[in-house]
């Protein structure tokens, strides 16, 4: 049923339709509305056969989900930013144990400096923990991906993160088609665990494993992700057959057929990029965009096929790998091994800095003239940066950078005295 609703509520309703049996939650902005919504549904009896557990931390949230999943319950949690860092050990454990937990990430920057706004630093920090990571472009896709995520997770016995841009999607009111229970039931069968803590048939889960077997266990995690490369597009196709719309898949191309310049992006940014691509096309540019939905596993082959005919690739990233630059770019460049084309990395939108169509159009124009650097910073205020560097040159005790810059840009609220 079509509704105008907040993204967080759409995700909560989609998760509820998946009949989770255990939801562990610890609130953190901008994820809070999702678990609040689910908590209400459990409390008011709209979501039955589900235990909603308020835990004392993010570490506990995922640890309880691990226990619940090992006991055979369909388990869900959600977090963001410092929350995913606090649960980092459990993030690896869930994957290493092969427990099919689904977790929403309301993508948010990581401090310091503390910042509640959107970028991709949080889920990117845990990209190699063995979870599948799917990025939502719209709130419709955010809702739909959760339905696909439970199916994928349980088929492979591998946890899945659904990454939803904080505020930009989680707090946006949009048109979302919420499916009915029968449709979801037809798509998502009941959870049949491959391993379960069962008193009648006891096993232990979580053995100490030495050099004789650790390597094989770890390799099999990689093998699961390889299988996911096959299953993700198949599950998206089945989803389309059941629900009548495109959601998920590995990657999607927009106006790339004759494109000389192809932009690569993840998440909600793709919408703004599409508008900019249309405008650049209308002005005669041959440009398109590839959106990566599945970041883990990274679809090397599909990205290569989508990009290989272009003259240049511009990777737009909402995360800065300090000391090297882009993270998505690494995968994109690996996918293009042996192909000669120009590759540019553009870091944008950190800590909620708006990414505007105007800036994108300027960026595309510079790209078309091959005037970009290998690594670029969209709408970074270089004057502010240079003034802070100068302060550091002028005096040894230049003081804390964040406070200096806030004072510089005139945000007086941060001033102490």
């Amino acid at each position, binding site marked *: 049923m079509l509704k*105008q609703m907040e993204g967080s509520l759409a995700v909560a309703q989609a998760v509820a339709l998946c009949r989770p049996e255990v939801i562990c939650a610890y609130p953190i902005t901008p994820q809070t509305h999702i678990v609040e919504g689910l908590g209400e549904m459990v409390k008011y009896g709209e979501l039955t056969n589900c235990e909603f557990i308020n835990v004392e931390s993010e570490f506990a949230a995922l640890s309880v989900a691990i226990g619940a999943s090992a006991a055979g319950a369909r388990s869900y949690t959600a977090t963001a930013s410092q929350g995913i860092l606090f649960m980092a050990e459990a993030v690896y454990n869930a994957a290493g144990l092969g427990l099919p937990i689904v977790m929403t990430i309301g993508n948010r920057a990581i401090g310091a400096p503390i910042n509640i*706004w959107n970028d991709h630093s949080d889920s990117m920090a845990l990209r190699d923990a063995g979870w599948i990571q799917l990025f939502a472009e719209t709130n419709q896709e955010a809702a739909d991906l959760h339905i696909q995520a439970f199916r994928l997770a349980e088929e492979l016995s591998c946890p899945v993160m659904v990454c939803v841009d904080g505020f930009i999607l989680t707090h946006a*009111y949009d048109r979302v088609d919420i499916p009915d229970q029968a449709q979801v039931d037809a798509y998502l069968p009941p959870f049949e665990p491959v391993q379960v803590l069962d008193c009648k048939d006891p096993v232990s889960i979580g053995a100490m494993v030495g050099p004789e077997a650790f390597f094989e266990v770890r390799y099999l995690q990689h093998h699961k992700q390889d299988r996911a490369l096959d299953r993700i597009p198949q599950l998206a196709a089945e989803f389309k057959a059941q629900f009548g719309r495109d959601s998920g898949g590995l990657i999607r191309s927009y106006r790339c057929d004759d494109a000389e310049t192809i932009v690569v992006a993840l998440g909600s*940014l793709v919408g*703004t990029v*599409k*508008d900019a691509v249309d405008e650049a096309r209308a002005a005669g540019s041959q440009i398109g965009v590839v959106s990566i939905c599945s970041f883990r596993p990274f679809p090397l082959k599909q990205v290569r096929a989508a990009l290989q005919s272009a003259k240049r690739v511009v990777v737009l990233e909402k995360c800065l790998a300090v000391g090297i630059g882009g993270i998505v770019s690494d995968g994109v460049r690996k996918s293009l091994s042996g192909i000669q084309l120009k590759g540019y990395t553009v870091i944008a939108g950190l800590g909620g800095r708006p990414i505007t169509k105007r800036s994108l159009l300027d960026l595309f124009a510079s790209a078309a003239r091959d005037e970009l650097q290998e690594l670029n910073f969209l709408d970074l205020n270089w004057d502010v940066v240079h003034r802070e560097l100068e302060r550091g040159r002028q005096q040894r005790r230049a003081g804390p950078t964040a406070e200096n810059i806030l004072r510089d840009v005139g945000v007086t609220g941060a001033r102490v005295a």
Partner: protein
Amino acid sequence: MFQVRIHGRGGQGVVTAAEMLSIAAFDEGRYAQAFPSFGSERMGAPVMAFCRIDAKEIRTREPVMQPDALIIQDPTLLHQVDLFSGLPSSGYIIINSSRSFDELGIGELLGKFAADHLCAVAASELAMKFVGRPLPNAALLGGFAAISGQLRFDSVAKAISQKFPGKVGAANVAAARAAYELALSSIGSPVAHA
């Protein structure tokens, strides 16, 4: 596409106002996108929210920098925030004030705007009268519907009732209707009960 920017202070229901606008537009079969800009999350701090309305899917996620209409929930922001940034001379402004634009000292500044695109309505007073609390957001949406012609009053009323079920919703709808009628008469239109 029609873009609205709502300015107010934390606690005045700025974000809720944008959400209700989007619900009203959705109810009329259009696409709408409402989202907040959390400059800071403190009660009383300046807050902005946005609503886009279009006949087709809205893909952009950038903040509204060139609004077609401004809804100003708190006139004390006039000297604190660059409220009119990006608003073209064809734009609409509705402000929560019992004083006129001239009395607020911005009559000259807004001279380039069409008189029937400007409206000051005492939304907080209306809210006190009908709701018992000085929350101006619902009333201003009634005023917005009147001056912009973008939404039918009935859709706005339905959106308010959806967001605030029961008595509170009905009281807010009454405040919105009063503002709608005041706004219509202020721009010289005959009061039409939509």
